[in-house]
Structures are given as structure tokens and as C-alpha cells.
């Protein structure tokens, strides 16, 4: 459904943040994008959600299509209407708005009243705690609850493809586990997910496919489970010492390149 081809993105005409990335998110799947700080993960999501311009970023080359529609020229509101909703890095909930108002803000791009009501029900089913705390200010929630609110808020727009930017950031391991389960459940309910993470354990646990970004380029890609067995990913993301003699060919046929982070 989402198809990115040889994408080049720069900031201010100088910084090359993404260099020739190609990527597919098939309908109904969870796709993970791993990479360390500065790898270009957020830039990739900004390109899809139309917020690149707010950062003086520009698509220099390549195409980004969603169900055939070109996204490069779309603004964020249009992207939301097409069914693409991004949960920003660091949650960015509206701290001065109540939980309920945060959710209403999330449904603002959703014109269809019954879809909105359905989305609200889905959010409260997924996150009962949000219903309990609906009249509290967002700022009063714990980190984990804020992440749930950020995800719930995005779901209010009834996305076809949910874009998540490092949802595990700064959260305790137990909460990260819950976030992983929530992502899997959201996907089971029919929403495709593009999950950007540094926490490879969680991401590869829920993803069907995965890409590894290395300073703006895809260095590895393939089936998530197979990818998690490669030396590079083991060593750099999963904290294991993989034997150097083991080499796994990834299904996409890409050669394994050395990961230099």
C-alpha cells in the first residue's frame, strides 16, 4: 500500500538525511524500520506524513506512493484524509488539553461521524485507562499512558496505515512489552503499521518485515524473524554476540552490508 522508491531527502538543501531509500509496506502488515539516532527514520516518516516542509526538508528525488497516490505534494491534512496518521517521536500529546480533548483533536481530520464514534470505542477498548482519565489533563499522565494517548489520538482518525516513531522511547521494559502487544492488536484489527524503532527486540517481535537504516541508506532488509537472526542485528540491536562465521542471506536479495553506527 505504501511504496517508497529511491527516495532522497535533504534539509535546507544541505543535510542529506535520506539517500536512495526504497521500501514497501504491504497491506495489512507491520513493517519495522530500525536504525540508530540520525539514521533518517523520522525523516522518512515526515516524508510520508507531509510534515517535511515544516522542517525545511525537501524530497530531491524518488517517489512516495500510497495506494497509487503521490504523497510528495500532499500536506499533512491531506495525508490524514488519505488514511496515513503519524504518532510523533516523544509522544507530543497536548499537555494542557484533557485526555478526551486530545482524542477529539485526533479525530479532527475524520469527517465521518460514525467512523469517529467507532474509532473512539476502539480506542477506549484498547486503552481502558484513557476512559478512566478522560477528564484529566494530558500532562498528568505517566509516560506509558501518554504513549497510549498518543497512539489512541492517532487512531481517532481511523488510519489505514499507522506510522509510529519510536513508541518505546524512554519507557520501562514492562510498558514497552505492552506497547508491542497493542501494536500487534491494532494490526490484527486491520490497520497496517510502519514502526520506527531503536528497540529491535520489541519491533522485530511484532513486525512481519523489517528494514535497517544506516546513515540514510537501507543496509539490511527482509523478513523480521530472519533479520533478527543476522549477526549485525544480533550484535548491534539485540545485544548478543553473534559468531562472525554465520551469515544469513536476506530474502530481498540485498547483500548484508557492514553496519557502522
Amino acid at each position, binding site marked *: 500500500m505504501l511504496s517508497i522508491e529511491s527516495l532522497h531527502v535533504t534539509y535546507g538543501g544541505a543535510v542529506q538525511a535520506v539517500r536512495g531509500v526504497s521500501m514497501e509496506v504491504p497491506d495489512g502488515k507491520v513493517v519495522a524500520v530500525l536504525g540508530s539516532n540520525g539514521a533518517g527514520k523520522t525523516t522518512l516518516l515526515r516524508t510520508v506524513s507531509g510534515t517535511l516542509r515544516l522542517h525545511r526538508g525537501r524530497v530531491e528525488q524518488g517517489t512516495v506512493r500510497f495506494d497509487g497516490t503521490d504523497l510528495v505534494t500532499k500536506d499533512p491534512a491531506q495525508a490524514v484524509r488519505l488514511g496515513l496518521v503519524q504518532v510523533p517521536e516523544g509522544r507530543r500529546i497536548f499537555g494542557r*488539553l484533557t485526555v478526551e480533548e486530545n482524542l477529539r483533536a485526533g479525530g479532527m481530520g475524520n469527517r465521518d461521524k460514525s467512523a469517529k464514534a467507532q474509532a473512539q470505542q476502539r480506542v477506549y477498548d484498547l486503552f481502558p485507562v484513557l476512559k478512566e482519565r478522560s477528564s484529566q489533563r494530558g500532562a498528568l499522565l505517566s509516560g506509558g499512558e501518554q504513549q497510549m494517548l498518543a497512539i489512541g489520538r492517532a487512531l481517532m482518525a481511523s488510519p489505514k496505515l499507522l506510522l509510529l516513531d519510536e513508541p518505546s522511547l524512554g519507557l520501562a521494559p514492562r510498558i514497552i512489552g505492552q506497547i508491542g502487544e497493542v501494536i500487534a492488536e491494532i494490526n490484527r484489527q486491520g490497520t497496517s503499521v510502519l514502526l520506527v524503532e531503536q528497540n529491535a527486540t520489541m519491533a522485530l517481535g511484532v513486525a512481519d518485515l523489517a528494514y535497517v537504516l544506516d546513515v540514510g541508506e537501507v543496509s539490511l532488509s527482509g523478513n523480521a524473524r530472519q533479520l533478527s537472526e543476522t549477526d549485525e542485528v544480533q550484535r548491534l540491536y539485540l545485544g548478543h554476540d553473534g559468531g562472525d562465521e554465520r551469515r544469513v542471506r536476506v530474502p530481498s536479495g540485498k547483500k548484508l552490508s557492514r553496519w557502522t553506527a
Partner: protein
Amino acid sequence: MTQFLSLLLNGISLGALYALIALGFVIIFKSSEVVSFTHGSLLLLGAYSIARLSDAIGFLPAVVVGILITALAAFVIERLIINRLRGAAVISLAIVTIGVDIIILTELIRRIGSDILNVPHPWGGESFRIGSVGLSQNRLIAFIVAALLIALFFVAFKYSNWGIAMRASAEDGETAALMGIRQGRVSALAWVVAGVLAAVAALFLVGSPTPGVSPTAYAVALRAFPAAILGGLDSTGGALVGGLLIGIAEAMAAGYQDQLLFLGRGFSAVVPFIVMIAVLMFRPSGLFGTKELTRV
């Protein structure tokens, strides 16, 4: 005591009008990150339109059309200029609005010329009395209308989709955009609302006890700036409190001017600014503001 009560009533009614203007100022700042100095000329535009049109189409239609004209002018300023300069430094935008203000003001002054324009308020210049405490009928009606509008504004700001979109984008514009909220629309609507509020304030500010429409009506809007700033530039509640404070302070200074003569004649006209400076000394971001004005 009677005099005090009388001044207090007058101050509150004047303050309610300042609050209308200041509210517009605050929502423009919240939604467009612009400190808008166009309010003086918008106010005068409202008063001028209502006065000019009254002869031709009658008072009430003139009020409606005058308000629409002012709202339209605000809308055009936002679409044509502010929206295109989104992201520019707050200080440059402020100066741009001063430029726009001067252009509109110059044209209005040229049109008014040496005419004495009057808005033919049906309630005339009579006063309304409880015992010996007096208030002009104009100010009484002004107070009622302003109170209703302010209440309506706060309800809309709290509960309507517009209010939520506005508060969300004021808090975090990029995230609001990610939710599909169109900031351009939020901002344009804020300018329209500000235009309406300014025109309503204008309608009453050029009535008794103030004589007619003249370029001096412009100075009135200038006194609403301190109201917005001392309340906190990004606080709607602050605009209300600031407006009332300034209105009361000004009315008191005018009423007791004989006792305050040592400060010079016309002291009441500068009182709003003195109150503002005094408040900012102790609270640099205003009474309820969250953003320090030094950043502006």
C-alpha cells in the same frame, strides 16, 4: 462611596470592551504567533463602516454589515499577508502588522476627513441610574453584550471543535498538523473572530460618553494592548482579567483626576500603560501567560 461605585461600574463596562479587543489579540497570537498591531485600524474601520452605513440602510443593518466588513478585512489580512509569512520571526511579523495598520488607518483618516461621524445609537446618550450611581445606557448595553459575547467565546473555546483545534495548534502546531488540523484555517478563523469582536467593541466605544467617530477611537484600541499583555499574551482568561483591570484603573484615574492632578492632566489616558508596566515588573509573562514576553 457613590462616586466610587459609579466609577467602578463605568470601569467594568469599559473594561468589558477592552476585554473584547484583547481576546481577539490573544487568539490571533495563539493561532498565528503574531502580535497583531492591526487592531487599532480594524476598530476604526468597524466604527467608520457602521457610522457611514447607518444613514443609508439604518442602524441595525449597518451594525451587521459593519461587523462583516471588519471581519472580512481581518480575514483578508490573514490570507494575503500573515498566512504567507508563516514561520517568519515574531518581531518581523509584528512590524508587518504595524505597516498594514498604518495603511488602513491612513485611508480611513482620509475618508473621515474633517467630518464628524456619528453612530446613531437608538439608545441615545441617556444615562441609567440606580440611586445616585450612574452609567450611560450605551455602556450598560455594551456591558451586557460584551458579557454575553465573552461567555459565548469561552464556551466555544472550551467545547467546540474550533476551540480544541485552536488550543491544540497553539500548544504544538506540528502535532496538530499531524492530526489533520489545518492551521491556516484555524488562524483565518481566529482573525475573523478577532475582527468581529473588535467591531462590536467599536460600536459601543464610539457611543456615549465618548463623542462620535474620530481617529481618536484608534487610541482606544491601543489601550487594549496593555490589557492583553498584562493578562498574558497567550491567555484568554488573562485577556478578560486584563481588560477589566485596565478599564477600572482608567475609569478611577479619570474620576479622581482632581485628586491626582499632581500627576498631570490626562493622566487617565496613560494609566493602562502604567498598570501594564507595573504588572510586568513582577510577572514578566503577564498574570496568566506562559510565554515570556522577552521571547516575543
